[in-house]
């Protein structure tokens, strides 16, 4: 079945009334749980899992997927309005979305994020239709050396985000990499930096880290400040929607982000994290006004949002054809498939086209629904900011606690939130960028295991990184990027 035929077939599956109803239910529910900080899709999907037993496998998966990407729309709302990202991807969205909101332009940020998300997913579907066969082979072509080189490229590119103080940005990445070492070492089984706590054996909880670094730190910093300045009481309609020249700054960053997302998403693991950061770094690098980034640049929201939505779509290829889930939520969805006796694997595309293409088609329908649903809601979301902060922040703290607890039912993780929150507040006082810490944390374990794995496989020969064409290409890109930065900084020093 060609991609186009497959997609049309998928549409016929996804548009069946009973499937469509579950799709609508999933995206609406997803949006609302996504707005609640910290809870997101994880707890909701766990709860819905037993219910899916009574649905057809297609309806079940489409509903759960709806919760998943619906929660990404909702998560963008929490990130932009309150600086409460639940994932590294939405941490990138806060970089420029939150400054926009503080300038009273939350509506613009939300509009940009929603339209770019839609463009990203639309683009992702088109790529999938044309290249599904190619994408399903890409993952097996990537070896340990290639992954290690690719992730180091992602880190190097992203480190330039904090370009005003490169050392401070780099220090956050390295601190994140170190935090990523906590837990059981895959190769030796050694317990690293766990200090006798069994809860640390699987590493620091990502949601606790994100919530502490961003949410709790932000609450502490804002209790006094928000009361004094606040947000304009009356928000005029024209401030909700982007100005014409801002509208023009959405499509191209979104397209660039979507291309990055479609490619990296197909690589199992953290494709969507890398692509969000790369999209941000790319926009910053090619912009004529890089100084605007971090202070409310529309492109800084459009690129990464399009990238992570495009990546979410192509990520279903390795998830379904190799059974490698990109994150714990994808793993849950694989569990849902297994409940229905559907084993993800190489035969999925041919043996279950209903499932595969129905899901892809439902992405298109669901994203359209989300756009239609969310654009009118922008006014309501923004008016949330009119609630005095002293009413908001205790509620935020409770939702953060319960959200973190819902991940795996460990009170330990709430203690961790408190400690990380204190660290996060200290970092914000000294103007360190916590998004880079999160990036290092996510990529660290992958870089280390792939690096060590590559050297085990090559029996200790480091030339493996240059002998494999894919890895060699990434190594060349890393070298080029470092060279460009060095030349640029030299040029900056000389003319002064």
């Amino acid at each position, binding site marked *: 079945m060609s991609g186009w035929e497959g997609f049309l077939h998928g549409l016929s599956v996804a548009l069946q009334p009973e499937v469509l109803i579950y799709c609508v239910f999933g995206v609406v529910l997803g949006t609302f749980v996504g707005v609640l900080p910290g809870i997101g899709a994880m707890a909701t999907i766990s709860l819905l899992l037993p219910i899916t037993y009574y649905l057809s496998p297609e309806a079940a998966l489409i509903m759960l997927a709806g919760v998943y990407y619906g929660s990404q729309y909702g998560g963008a709302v929490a990130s932009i309005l309150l600086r409460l990202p639940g994932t590294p991807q939405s941490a990138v969205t806060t970089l420029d979305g939150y400054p926009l909101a503080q300038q009273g332009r939350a509506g613009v940020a939300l509009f940009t994020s929603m339209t770019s998300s839609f463009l990203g997913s639309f683009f992702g579907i088109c790529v999938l239709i044309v290249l599904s066969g190619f994408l399903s082979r890409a993952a097996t072509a990537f070896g340990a050396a290639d992954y290690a080189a690719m992730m180091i490229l992602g880190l190097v590119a992203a480190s330039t985000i904090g370009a005003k103080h490169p050392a401070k940005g780099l220090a956050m990445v390295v601190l994140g990499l170190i935090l990523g070492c906590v837990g059981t070492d895959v190769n030796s*089984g050694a317990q690293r930096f766990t200090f006798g706590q069994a809860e640390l054996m699987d590493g620091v909880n990502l949601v606790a880290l994100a919530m502490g670094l961003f949410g709790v730190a932000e609450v502490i910093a804002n209790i006094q400040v928000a009361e004094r300045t606040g947000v304009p009481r009356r928000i005029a309609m024209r401030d909700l929607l982007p100005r014409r020249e801002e509208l023009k700054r959405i499509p191209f960053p979104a397209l660039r982000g979507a291309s990055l997302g479609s490619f990296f998403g197909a690589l199992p693991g953290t494709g969507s994290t890398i692509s969000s950061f790369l999209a941000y770094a790319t926009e910053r690098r090619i912009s004529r006004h890089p100084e605007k980034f971090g202070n409310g640049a529309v492109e800084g929201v459009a690129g990464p949002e399009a990238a992570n939505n495009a990546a979410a779509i192509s990520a279903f290829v390795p998830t379904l054809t190799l059974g490698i889930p990109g994150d714990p939520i994808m793993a849950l*969805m694989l569990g849902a498939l297994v409940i229905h006796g559907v084993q993800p694997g190489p*035969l999925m595309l041919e043996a279950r086209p209903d499932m595969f293409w129905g899901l892809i088609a439902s992405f298109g329908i669901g994203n359209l629904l989300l756009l239609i649903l969310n654009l009118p809601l922008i006014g309501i979301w923004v008016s949330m900011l009119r609630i005095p902060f002293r009413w908001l922040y205790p509620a935020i703290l409770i939702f953060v606690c319960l959200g973190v607890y819902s991940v795996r039912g460990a009170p330990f993780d709430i203690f961790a939130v408190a400690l990380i929150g204190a660290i996060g507040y200290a970092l914000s006082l000294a103007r360190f960028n916590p998004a880079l810490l999160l990036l290092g944390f996510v990529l660290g374990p992958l870089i280390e295991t792939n690096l060590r794995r590559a050297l085990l496989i090559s029996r200790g020969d480091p030339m493996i990184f240059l002998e494999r064409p894919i890895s060699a290409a990434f190594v060349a890109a890393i070298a080029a990027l470092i060279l460009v930065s060095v030349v640029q900084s030299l040029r900056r020093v000389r003319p002064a």
Partner: protein
Amino acid sequence: MTISRRAALIGAAVLTFATPALAQDAAWPSKPLHTFVGFPAGSSPDLLARIVTDPLAATLGQPIVIENKPGAGGVIGIQQMLNAKDQDYTFGTTINGPMTTAPRLVPDLGYDVAADVAPVALIATSPLVLVVAADFVADDLAGFVTAAGAEPEVVSYGSVGKGSGAHLTAELFSDRAGVEMLHIPYTSYAEVTTAIIGHEIDSGFMAPSAAMQYVEAGTLKILGITSQVPFDQAPGVPVMAGQAGLPDDFRAELWNAFIAPAGTDEAIINKLNADINVILADPAVQKRLADMGWQVAGGTAAELQQRIVEDTEIWGAVLDRIDAKN
């Protein structure tokens, strides 16, 4: 003291001992039961627990709340079960690792398997299969052993981490077959299969359900299975025991069991064991477990106890060998 009076006294003593158990038997369970699972919702051990506890709740007439406490390969689930302190209403299901190898692999384990955990019933077992790429030089186990024996570490295998079932099984196999293979750890079976297909590594032990689709798709082939008898979910796969120089008693299986904190009322454990054995005899339950790659086991609590002791010994010896190598 006449004989009859003494008999009456003994009888009374027996009664006083027996009465609490009987009284509790009639009243138990009077509230919902909690079952701790050391893996997240939707994972294979979680689904297995639910397949058993759903009918069990119906038999007992009380709901069973599944408490997912994932982490540390299932160890957190047992720790949390032992912390719950709601005696006779707290139980757990666990895979073999936390009951057999965890004391060796996890410092500060926080519990002593023999003293703190009471076995209830073995639910199911899962053998592993040895998988290689479809174009691997050998087509059977003897050929594989010849290839692997040509030179130390010339053949590599993937596992899902140090001390995992896949790692220990491969080391047990190497030991018994007299070969030396290169261990490459991964984090999931899906990654191992991908690496074998991409020719990054040569082989790996994994659950049959993880491999079967790739065999059908023609990218992987299976050389043998670690159970003592052929397995329905891996049709046509030869048993490894007794082949290619392996001893006849060669066996390596993962398992999943229902457990309770030590100190749980004996009568309750016996009742649960009987109820679980009835549930496991149901063909519908057997089919659902088989679809996930599990073979129904059952048996008495004492048999489970023996299995724990035996496996602790077997895998302990393998761990000794691994530690000696490094």
